[in-house]
């Protein structure tokens, strides 16, 4: 009995010291959770590459030399909202994560958005497309980097309608992302005098699009809008070529296309496609230098996609804000407010800012896929066609329905 009480006393003392130790070092510890699709159809555009981008951002921040302790963990949400939220909850409750980054798949992203708000964490989303993250479902804990469906609709969509593509048929991925992209593009089409003549909602991860493509072909629409992403987009484009859709005079609008998708389709089939991204590795010396470092660390030597670049850029800005705060307050709203108060600037996205609704504003670029004869290397795919300044590409605050703006 006596030994037991001594033991428990010792244990209590040890615990007290341990707790005190944590408290004193607390303000300079950060834990980053990279939540992504690690093995499915979005794994190449985010996935392990996004975790790597976060690691590089931590290294480049130089905070470790200044006494900060920054850890990164990663998780696989498997494109399922329930798994995504379960991981997020565990990260906040058990692993004491401060910030969750990446999270492609709009369905998962919106579900995780609620958890982060509830737990007062920080959310730097780069992978998801839905503009709802900074609009109807905006949150004081959320910053949306890189791109969104509003931007895609108002760049690629608008350019195509203005070039005469006034009738559209949609192939839409049947979940939050596809619905948001179709909705935002439709409003651009009708605002510019065009018309949507039909559409099909297909299940996520569909291997064969021929049935849907035949319906699109029969619709006689001038533009077939692909409101899908990743493997679904590559399969649509490849099979559309097979069914002679482009040769028949209809034009494909790849509303969302990533570098890794173009690699997967091959230039032979992808050449001539017009689309929008906010980052391309071969823009200037700075992006080339970053991308070279990134590619050397990737297993398959892949160049970074805009999503992965956005994770890097977002984490850099997050750490800058923490440094400006002088420590980590572990208070999501406070950190995000600081992030919004500082202009963003880095080697990948240039100068920008975060709007009160959480939307990051930076340039968007219209690209065209090169012909095989124009490509000089394994990742030399894009020709720059035009630049859209951030304030024209993203939702104007006057149109945003975000509740944070009505204070």
């Amino acid at each position: 009995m006596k030994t037991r009480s001594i033991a428990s006393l010792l244990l209590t003392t040890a615990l007290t010291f341990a707790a005190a130790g944590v408290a004193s070092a607390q303000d300079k510890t950060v834990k980053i959770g990279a939540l992504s699709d690690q093995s499915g159809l979005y794994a190449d555009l985010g996935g392990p590459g996004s975790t790597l981008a976060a690691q590089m951002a931590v290294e480049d921040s130089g905070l470790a030399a200044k006494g900060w302790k920054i850890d990164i963990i990663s998780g696989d949400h498997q494109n399922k909202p329930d798994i995504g939220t379960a991981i997020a909850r565990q990260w906040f409750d058990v692993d004491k994560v401060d910030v969750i980054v990446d999270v492609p798949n709009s369905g998962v992203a919106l579900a995780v958005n609620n958890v982060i708000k509830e737990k007062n964490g920080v959310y730097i989303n780069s992978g998801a497309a839905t503009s709802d993250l900074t609009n109807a479902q905006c949150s004081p804990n959320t910053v949306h980097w890189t791109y969104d469906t509003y931007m895609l609709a108002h760049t690629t969509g608008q350019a195509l309608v203005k070039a005469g593509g006034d009738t559209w048929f949609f192939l839409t991925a049947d979940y939050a992302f596809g619905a948001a992209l179709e909705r935002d593009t439709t409003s651009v089409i009708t605002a510019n005098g065009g018309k949507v003549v039909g559409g099909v909602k297909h299940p996520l991860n569909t291997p064969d699009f021929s049935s849907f493509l035949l319906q699109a072909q029969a619709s006689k629409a001038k533009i077939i809008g692909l409101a899908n992403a990743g493997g679904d987009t590559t399969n649509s484009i490849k099979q559309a070529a097979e069914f002679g859709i482009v040769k028949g005079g209809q034009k494909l609008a790849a509303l969302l296309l990533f570098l890794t998708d173009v690699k997967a389709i091959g230039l032979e089939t992808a050449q001539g496609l017009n689309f929008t991204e906010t980052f391309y590795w071969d823009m200037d010396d700075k992006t080339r230098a970053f991308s070279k470092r990134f590619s050397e660390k990737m297993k398959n030597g892949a160049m970074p996609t805009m999503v992965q670049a956005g994770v890097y850029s977002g984490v850099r800005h997050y750490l800058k804000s923490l440094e400006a705060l002088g420590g980590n307050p572990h208070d999501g709203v406070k950190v995000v407010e600081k992030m919004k108060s500082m202009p963003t600037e880095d080697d990948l996205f240039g100068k920008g800012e975060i709007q009160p609704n959480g939307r990051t504003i930076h340039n968007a670029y219209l690209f065209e896929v090169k012909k095989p004869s124009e490509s000089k290397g394994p990742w030399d795919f894009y020709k720059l066609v035009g630049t859209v300044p951030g304030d024209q590409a993203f939702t104007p605050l006057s149109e945003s329905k975000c509740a944070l703006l009505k204070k």
Partner: protein
Amino acid sequence: MTFRGTPKGPGAGSMQALYAQLLVGLINGSFYALLSLGLAVIFGMLNIINFAHGALYMMGAFVAYFLLNLGGINYWWALLLAPIIVGIFGMILERTMLKFLTGLDHLYGLLLTFGIALIVQGVFQNYFGSSGLPYAIPDQLKGGMNLGFMFLPIYRGWVVVFSLVVCLATWFLIEKTQLGAYLRAATENPTLVRAFGINVPRMITLTYGLGVGLAALAGVLSAPINQVRPLMGADLIIVVFAVVVIGGMGSIMGSIITGFALGVIEGLTKYFYPEASNTVVFVLMVLVLLVKPTGLTGRAA
């Protein structure tokens, strides 16, 4: 929020559009038939539920890709070589692992082959990512023809004809030839067949190789249509298992007919109610199992 009253595509109800969807269904059915045939052969002769089938199908496509890009060997040779190469890989699997499962519960075979599939997919994914690699349609089969009711890519037509020929040849080999008779006898009573001087273990290994070769062949056929992706088999194999269950485990002709038929039914679903196209096969499976638990052409176990 835009909402279209009915999810039907334009031109719904026109006979031309219906023919087109039937033909497209037949094309997808070709892959189901080739894959479920391989599964049926393996189950019928080895009594193993081969969950590695999807991974081996994927390997077939990757071998075709490597042959073309590393060896400069074209599609036509790949049709011959890829099944042989993957078939040999399968036979090594059989000799080193699967043969120890003889006489054990089905569950062991299922677990072992499923594990093999996960390892193979993981290794490929590690090195090639998930979005896949492009494989061009061979020049001789490029382009398409206008059938009046639809534009048929020549390559798709080729897939239907070729897989039908391969399926029927396999059926003929097993059901109508001397070799097939030995095979079927060896499944019924291996000891007796061995007494006649026939090397049963070697025959079983070759049979597994044949089933695996069929999967690899389907992989080569699908390479130009789909991306060559590590998960291409995993996405397909669940549907193919449903096909096998509906057709009846181990029935050669049953698996061929069900494969084509389900492709057509799935195609029609894509036309009338696209949202359900991923689930219709499983709904059918439940219905068939409720009415006839051994499958449409299956024999009682």
